[in-house]
Structure formats: structure tokens, C-alpha cells
């Protein structure tokens, strides 16, 4: 095992971190386990491919989160808000249906072939770090993701909207009674969550090849990360995402069979030992 | 004679002391009322006695034996049952179905008797969520009475009932208690009803016992009048 493998783990962890923070926000606030999160990530990656192909990658980083935020607005206004009195499982199943549709639509538009996105010139090649030659692009994923995580945490803790979000994630009824505009906060949270998924997809595109199964592959892992990190705890999800990414990548070296079950093992242990997750409120 | 006791019960929710050093002793055939203003700790008291909430300190005893840590299931199996302030029944089942279900688990020789006394025999086949609220309260009570428990803890059985329903409910409680020689604890808001129905009364305020005694004693007690009855007596 060497530094490159650890860095790979950190890179994967970074992607998981960004993805799971979005999912955690939506779950914490609306109570919906967004089964469409993998599909959102995938859509982000595919849209990034097209934008990157026509124009350039930097524009993709800008446009894709915006596009996904719009999708988030639609999700909130068409599904989550009108159906907020239905049980959370039913809403989750609806997102499941949306995921099925989205996956098919992506294939209809972009086809089944595996696609590749080339990273921008500046980020190609390798950089020497910790005595290893490491692909620059992957380093940039780590840097961007960590910067984003820091910004998100600062915003949540420092701003008024952030306070409202945290309050509503803790206890949506009381927050509403205390004067928090729950509808407005939900809109922000859901579109932000989707934007983050799109950003994760964009970042992942030059690193991981694009194929129609990429959403599903990550979905379960991200759901597990959110549960392990703690329902409603965005910080917890981030830490769990990074942790799981590193542990899984590193243990692949030692035993691929074990590495593959790491997330499932983590989920089972956490849910049985601490149903709240490592840092959150009760799952059930 | 004391069959069920709470000694020095203290319940804390974080820093909030909901109940502090409360004692109570229940005897068979005696209806023991508990009254007190809102926030006095009445619900917490029943939760601690019934096993729903583990007290921070203090003991619960059955026939002199310590049962503080025993589960809710164990208690029911050993003759301690409770009813609920917020009606806790099985809405989608018929009245008969749910009472039979409870009777299966707790041998009840005379289910029809209980149904009769509470006026439930005519609606045996009605779905519980479709009957009047007052009748649902009676079902809630019936569930607690099945199987001949020796100790019955009743949490505001009259909650949500109109005046005459309330009078009837308390009369049922007293009748059933005397008939079956049950040690009954009756937490209630309806002060007049409690004075009418109970043999012994404990007054709680801010988690502590203000006074315990028969209705006449309690009514005359200085502390009680000042804290509670002053406006209502």
C-alpha cells in the first residue's frame, strides 16, 4: 500500500462527501430518502460531458450544478411539497420511480456506450506529492471537494439561512412554529442538494468513465453513508463519506472480497448499535 | 395490605426534574386518585410506575418485591396494567377483535362481563376507528382491565369526555375496582370527579407530593388549597 492508493481513497471519499452532503440535507429536511440521488449524479455527469464536449469543462462546472438545481426546484414543487403529508417511505418510492425514469432517459439521449471526458489542460498530467506522482486531476477533485465542504459547513453555521436549515432539519414542526419559512428553506435545500449531486457528477466525469450504471453503483453507497453518518447531520455524512471512501479503497488492496462488503457491514453495525447513526437523530 | 408501591420516585429529563421523591401505596379494592395542576408530573408518574420510563432514582415494588427495572411486558404478565390518556387502541380492528386479542394473552374468564359493564357489547362488531371518541376511551379502559390485573393505573380516563360521559366513566372505574378487588390508581383532571370517586387522594405539584389522605383531609389541607384548590374548590 502506498500514498497513491490512499490518495485514491481520498479522491473517492471526496466524491462521496459531496454526494452525501446533498442527500443528507434533503433527508434531514424533507425526511425523504432520495433514491433519485444516484440518477441526479449520473445526469450531472452526462450533461457535463455534453457541455464539456461543446464548450469546455470549466463551463460545465458552472452550468451543471445550476441545471441540477433547476431539477431540484421541480422535484420540490411537484413532488415533495404537495405530498409532504404522505409517509416518507412512499416519497422515497416515488423518487425510486423517478430514478428509473431518469436512467432510461439518459440512455435514450446519450446511448449505452461508455463515454469519457477529458480533463482540462491545466489539470492533466501528474503532480509530485508525498513522494508519488499522482494524477493532477484527482488532486483537484480532492481540493475542490474539501473547499466546498468547508464552505458548506461555514455557511450552515454562519448564515441565517444556514441556521434555518439546521433548525428545520432538527425539527421541522417546531422550526415552522418558530417562524422559519419551511417551504422556502426546503426549496433551497432540495435544489442545493441536487446541485451538489450534479457537481459531484461533473467532478467525477473525467475521473470515472460514464456509463448508464454509474448512478446505481453510487446510490446504495451514498444512502449507506448518510445513514452511517447520521440522519440529518450533514457534517456526519461528510465525515462518513470520506471515511468510507478511504477505507473501501485501502481495503481493496488487502482483500477485494472484504472491501466490497465494507459499506454493508458498516451500515449493519451502525444501525444495530446506534440507530441514530454516528451523529444524527433517529432513523425510525 | 399494600400490594403496589412507589418509593422515592424521581424522574429527570435532562436537567428538568419532572418528579421528585414521590411515594405512593396502593391497596386492593381502593381507588387512589392523583390530582394536580398541569405540569405537576402526573403523566410522568404513571410512566414511571408502569415501566414506560425508568426512574432516575427510587423504587417500584409489587407485593414487597422490587420491580423497578422490569419491562412493560413483564408487568402486564404479573398483573399490572395501565390505560392511556391519549387513546391507544387498534383503530382498524373491530372492538370485539381487539379485546379478544388481548384476552388471548391474558386469561380473562369473563370478557362479556367487562364488555357489558362498559356498554361495549352492542358495538362488538364495529370498527374501532368508526365509533364515538367517548366509546373509544371505554375500549382503551377495557384493554387495561382484561385478564384480571391486580393493579390498574389509569391515566386520565375522562380526557376528552363530556360531563355525563365522565361521570359514567368514573362510576365504571369505581364499580369494576370494588367488584374485582383491584388496586386502582386514577390520575385525573376532573377534581370533583376524583373527590367523588376516590377513597384516597394524592396531590402533586411541580413534581412533589403536596398531600395524601382521604378526600376530606385533602380538601382541608392548607398547602393544597393554596397551590391548587384555591380557585377550583
Amino acid at each position, binding site marked *: 500500500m502506498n500514498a497513491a492508493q490512499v490518495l485514491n481513497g481520498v479522491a473517492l471519499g471526496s466524491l462521496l462527501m459531496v454526494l452525501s452532503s446533498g442527500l443528507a440535507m434533503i433527508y434531514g429536511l424533507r425526511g425523504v*430518502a432520495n433514491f433519485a440521488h444516484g440518477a441526479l449524479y449520473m445526469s450531472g455527469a452526462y450533461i457535463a460531458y455534453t457541455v464539456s464536449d461543446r464548450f469546455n469543462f470549466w463551463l460545465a462546472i458552472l452550468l451543471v450544478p445550476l441545471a441540477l438545481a433547476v431539477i431540484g426546484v421541480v422535484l420540490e414543487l411537484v413532488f415533495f411539497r404537495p405530498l409532504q403529508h404522505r409517509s416518507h*417511505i412512499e416519497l422515497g418510492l*416515488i423518487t425510486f420511480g423517478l430514478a428509473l425514469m431518469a436512467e432510461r432517459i439518459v440512455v435514450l439521449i446519450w446511448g449505452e456506450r461508455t463515454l469519457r471526458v477529458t480533463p482540462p489542460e491545466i489539470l492533466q498530467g501528474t503532480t509530485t506529492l508525498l513522494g508519488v506522482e499522482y494524477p493532477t486531476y484527482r488532486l483537484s477533485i480532492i481540493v475542490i471537494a474539501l473547499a466546498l465542504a468547508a464552505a458548506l459547513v461555514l455557511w450552515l453555521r454562519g448564515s441565517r439561512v444556514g441556521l434555518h436549515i439546521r433548525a428545520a432539519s432538527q425539527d421541522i414542526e417546531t422550526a415552522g412554529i418558530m417562524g422559519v419559512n419551511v417551504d422556502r428553506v426546503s426549496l433551497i435545500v432540495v435544489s442545493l442538494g441536487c446541485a451538489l449531486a450534479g457537481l459531484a457528477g461533473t467532478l467525477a466525469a473525467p475521473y470515472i468513465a460514464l456509463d448508464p450504471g454509474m448512478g446505481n453503483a453510487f446510490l446504495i453507497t451514498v444512502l449507506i453513508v448518510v445513514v452511517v453518518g447520521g440522519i440529518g447531520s450533514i457534517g456526519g455524512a461528510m465525515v462518513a463519506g470520506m471515511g468510507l471512501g478511504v477505507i473501501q479503497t485501502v481495503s481493496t488492496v488487502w482483500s477485494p472480497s472484504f472491501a466490497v462488503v465494507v459499506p454493508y457491514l458498516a451500515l449493519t453495525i451502525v444501525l444495530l448499535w446506534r440507530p441514530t447513526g454516528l451523529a444524527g437523530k433517529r432513523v*425510525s | 395490605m399494600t400490594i403496589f408501591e412507589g418509593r422515592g420516585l424521581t424522574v429527570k429529563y435532562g436537567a428538568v426534574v419532572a418528579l421528585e421523591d414521590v411515594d405512593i401505596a396502593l391497596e386492593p379494592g381502593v381507588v387512589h386518585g392523583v390530582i394536580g395542576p398541569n405540569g405537576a408530573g402526573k403523566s410522568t408518574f404513571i410512566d414511571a410506575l408502569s415501566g414506560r420510563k425508568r426512574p432516575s432514582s427510587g423504587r417500584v415494588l409489587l407485593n414487597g418485591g422490587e420491580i423497578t427495572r422490569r419491562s412493560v411486558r413483564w408487568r402486564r404478565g404479573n398483573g399490572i396494567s395501565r390505560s392511556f390518556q391519549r387513546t391507544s387502541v387498534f383503530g382498524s380492528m373491530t372492538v370485539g377483535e381487539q379485546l379478544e386479542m388481548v384476552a388471548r394473552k391474558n386469561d380473562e374468564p369473563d370478557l362479556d362481563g367487562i364488555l357489558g359493564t362498559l356498554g361495549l357489547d352492542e358495538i362488538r362488531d364495529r370498527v374501532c*376507528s368508526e365509533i364515538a371518541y367517548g366509546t373509544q376511551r371505554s375500549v382503551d379502559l377495557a384493554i387495561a382491565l382484561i385478564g384480571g390485573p391486580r393493579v390498574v393505573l389509569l391515566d386520565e380516563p375522562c380526557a376528552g369526555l363530556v360531563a355525563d360521559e365522565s361521570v359514567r366513566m368514573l362510576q365504571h372505574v369505581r364499580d369494576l375496582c370494588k367488584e374485582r378487588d383491584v388496586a386502582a390508581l386514577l390520575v385525573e383532571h376532573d377534581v370533583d370527579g376524583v373527590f367523588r370517586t376516590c377513597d384516597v387522594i394524592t396531590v402533586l405539584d411541580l413534581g412533589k407530593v403536596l398531600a395524601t389522605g382521604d378526600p376530606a383531609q385533602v380538601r382541608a389541607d392548607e398547602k393544597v388549597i393554596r397551590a391548587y384548590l384555591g380557585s377550583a374548590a
Partner: protein
Amino acid sequence: MTTTAPLDDITESMLEGPAPGRRPRGTLIGLGVGVVVLFAGLAVPYVITDTYRMSLLLDATILSLMALGIGFLARHLGQISLGHGAFFGVAAYGVGVATTNWGWSPTAAVGFAVLAGTAISLVMGVLVVRASGFGFLMLTLALSQALYSLSVQTSARPLTGAHDGKLLSYDREMTFLGLTQADVMNPGLFWPFAWIALTACAMVLWLVGRSPFGTTLEGIRENEERMRFSGYDTFLPRLTAFVLSGAVASLGGALFAINAGYVSPEILGFTTAGDSLIAALIGGFGMLAGPVLGTFLFVYAQANFNFGGNLHLFTGIALIVVLVFMPGGITGAFQKLWRRVRRSRR
């Protein structure tokens, strides 16, 4: 009236079913209907001579066993499981391993497979049954995905064939309850076994639902706290229901493997379990016939609407439409209609 069913569990609207109250007369009528359906179904191969259509019906019947298990759990425990693919799949692989690796006869293999699948459901049940709502869903999903991941590992190749799947092979003399290896793949000949299995399991589950045990499950689903305060244990009944539904799914998996002669890892995964869940949901959880109906519709749709691989687009749309407008599924909608007609007649 309060229940303690948390917002995470499925709402009553999804469980739109027959009116409550279990009369002995109703049980006898139901059993009678079941027996008639069983015998009527046995005549199907004589009516449908087209092999393709027959094989579709057979596939639907076998898959219905998994959906039946899922539906039973949803109806009586109020829990949605994404883990039944694990039992179906483990049983299927069980048949594969027992015949191909150990040289057992297909009949013995099926017996073993059902036991194996049921054992897995026992293990999963112990871990899962205390959780509710989302936790339950996640655990069932995670545990079955874990099994899938393990089965596609190269180290698992001798047992499962990894990504290539497992081709069954057994002695040409060995038969499955009288059918040869060639015969079991013939839909018309295999049909009676699958059909009897389906109707028998459906009747058993139906009887269980109407029994005092079924009432206990309903009590636990509706108001677990009061059940405990009434002296009932809530863990064992739930576990029993889970294992029972797992056993039914396992039987489906075993029959599937014998009939297909080949097991691919996909049946252990999330997609198959998801499809079965969707089919069961669309059919409706309120009645046992719901998941079966949903599965038949799904298989039909898969055969006819899958041009260009668009099946999942349509199932996604159907799922959303049903969830939003008729959460009780198709059978739920019929129940509502029936009740309205009866009420207007009075």
C-alpha cells in the same frame, strides 16, 4: 385515536383491503375459492398451446412467489423490504450448487434450497426486524446487495460462477418429482408445480393472516406500544412473519432455477428486488392477489412494451402514478370501488 405507527411506515391508504372482521364462514368460502382456482389453473396448459405465452405465464407464476412474500410483509408488518431478492437468489444458487457441485438430485436440491433461503431470511430477520421504516428498507437492501457483491467475486466462481452465472448440470437419469431435465424446461410440463406452489403458498399466507397470529401482527403494526402493554412480545411474531415471507420467496427461487437451468447474479441484486416490489405495489398490498396480479402485469409488460429497453421508463411512470393517485394499487382501487357500490346500494 393514536397509533404509534411512525411516519416512516407505509400509510393505511396503501393497505386498502377487505373490511376487517374474520368470520369462519369467510374462511371456508375463501378456501373453497382457492381450491377452485387451483384446479382451474391446472387446466391452463391445455388451453394455451402457444409455448411462448405459456412460458410467460410460468415466469410470472414463479416470480409471483417473491412478490407474494413482499406483499405479505407489507400488509401484515407494514414494512417494505428490498431484500427478498436475497432469498430468491440464494435459493436459486442453492439449487445450482447442490446439483452441479454436489451431485444431488434436483428434488433434494430444491428442498435444500428452500431451507437455505429460509435460513438466510432468519439471519436477516434477526438483524432487520427491530428496525422500522427507512432503517428496515436500508438494511434489507444493504444485506442483499452485500450478498450480490459477494456472489460476483472471482473467489466465489466455483460456487456461483461470478458474473457469468451458474449453469445447472445434473445426471440425465435424475428427475425433479418425475420430470426429466428436458421436461422441467418445458413450460407446459413444469406449470403444475409452479401453479400449485403459488396457490398453496397464497392460501397458507391467507390463512395465517386470518388466524389469531395474523391479528397479533396487525396489532403490532398498528400500535406496537399497546401490544407490549398488553403483554405481547413484538419481536418473535415479526421475525416469524419475516421468515415465512422469506420461505415463500425461497420456494420461488428454487423453482426458478430448476426451470431455467441457469442462475445469473442479477436475481440477487437491487434491480430484481426493486422490480418485484414495484410489481407488488402496483398490484396492491391490501390483498394477497395484488402482488400476483402486479407480477403478471409486469411480465406481460416486459414482453410487450420493452421495445428498445424502455421497460423501466414505463415501470417508473406507473409506480409514480400509482403512488400518487392510487396508493392501494389496482386491487386497492377495486376495493374502494366495490365499497362505494355496496354503500350506494343500501
